[in-house]
């Protein structure tokens, strides 16, 4: 960076006014740089927020309530889906039991065993 001759020639033992001017300039540089970053982050943030905005949700009335599923189970499944999809926009439209499909049980066992050191 090429600073003005005045700034680059700050003497080894500067006067009070030179010191004040130098530190004021430094503060303006640092605060200005971070303020510029703030502005740019607000811009990019607005862009990404709009991009990942959720699509219009289906009205609740249109969903078919199923009293046979416990509401606690629905909440647990919704939480699991949210974690698995890492917060990506999603909508659960249907929850149903899969007949004799051992995939999730197998995944659970694999995850459990892989957390141990097998001797």
């Amino acid at each position, binding site marked *: *960076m090429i*600073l003005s001759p005045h*700034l*680059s020639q*700050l*003497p*080894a*033992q*500067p006067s009070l006014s030179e*010191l*004040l001017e*130098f*530190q004021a300039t*430094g*503060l303006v*540089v*640092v*605060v200005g*740089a*971070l*303020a*510029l*970053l*703030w502005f*740019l*982050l*607000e811009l*990019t*943030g607005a862009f*990404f*927020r709009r991009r*990942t905005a959720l699509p219009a949700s289906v009205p609740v009335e249109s969903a078919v309530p199923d009293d046979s599923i416990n509401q606690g189970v629905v909440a647990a499944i919704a939480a699991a889906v949210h974690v698995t999809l890492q*917060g990506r926009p999603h909508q659960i439209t249907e929850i149903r039991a899969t007949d004799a499909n051992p995939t999730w049980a197998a995944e659970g066992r694999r995850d459990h065993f892989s957390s141990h050191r097998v001797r």
Partner: protein
Amino acid sequence: MIQNLLDFFQTTGFSQLTGPMLLMWAIAGVLLYLAIAKGFEPLLLVPIAFGALIANLPTRGMITVEETAPGQFQSATFEMETEVVSTHRGEDGQIESQKIRVTKVEGGLFDFLSQGIKLELIPPLIFLGVGALTDFGPLIAMPRTLLLGAAAQVGLFVTFFSSSLFGFTSKQAAAIAIIGGADGPTAIFLSNKLAPELLGAIAVAAYSYMSLVPLIQPPIMRLLTTSKERKIRMKSLRKVSKMEKLVFAIMVMIICVLLVPDATALIAMLMLGNFLRECGVTERLVKSAQNEIINVLTIFLGTSVGITMRAESFLAPATMKIIFLGVIAFAISTASGVLMAKVMNLASPKNPVNPLIGSAGVSAVPMAARVSHNEGQKYDPQNYLLMHAMGPNVAGVIGTAIAAGYFISAFSG
């Protein structure tokens, strides 16, 4: 036989021990005690203290010391012997260029290791690891906390002013002021560039105060805030996507390098490490940067800094002044961060920030953020400020690197 024993004694290190050396042993002992028994920044203070002990032993073949000025000793100097292979002369007979072959290089182990600091290699490489360890998500989710990181740099410039009044030269004052940024690698980087004769004292002050963050900051935070302000709950941070984090790393690097090219080494390596972390396809490189690279370099950095702490240069009045000015820098940085948060609340009362997170604007990642969180929980145990405080905390790292770039721009010419 007695004469032989006396002659032998003269060849041992015992005959070369001096009082100041023994005093430095005690200082190294205190640093080791703080690191091991009190857990103050042990990863850095242990190698620094051990290096200081080595520097104050009558070693042979480890360190070559040169007296650069009366009473000023410089380590990390090796000697080279060369021979001229060919000489090219211009039309007027003046030598234009020479080809030289190095025939012999002499220096101790630490002379070579310390080249990592002298050539400014280790601090930027440590920043690579810091970048790989840092999640900038909280800062991206709440970018206005960049102002808190900026406010915390006030301490640097006030200390620069004070140091000049204390009789230090402008370059030395700039190197001392950066202690207020609470960023060890940046402090070492800057002091090596502007005031290498003060490197040991500045590094010890910087790391000591970083480790004392939980003791220094809370009284200042309590003094400047009301009980009501400490209980402010902040809105949950939004989730930041991977693409947004990647754009952030590139954008910050470009902006900072364009503004202060002298901070390129620090900023570029910080953002490279972070980009590796966030891109998700360089897992092996990230693991190396987060573990092996940063750990190996920390050992070398610490010991290399420690061996600059020779009694002749460390036991000087300037060291005490640096220690004093360092704590002033730290306190002002903390206070200005908290006060900036209060100003932001006046400007935006509907979406207030808890002023306790302002103190995290000094870098000291993540300890300063943890202090903000712990202080907040004392007044509202259900208030989780940690992630909110990480925003100003990492903003402080960027702010200190920019301030260092400004000082280098002004003085290295």
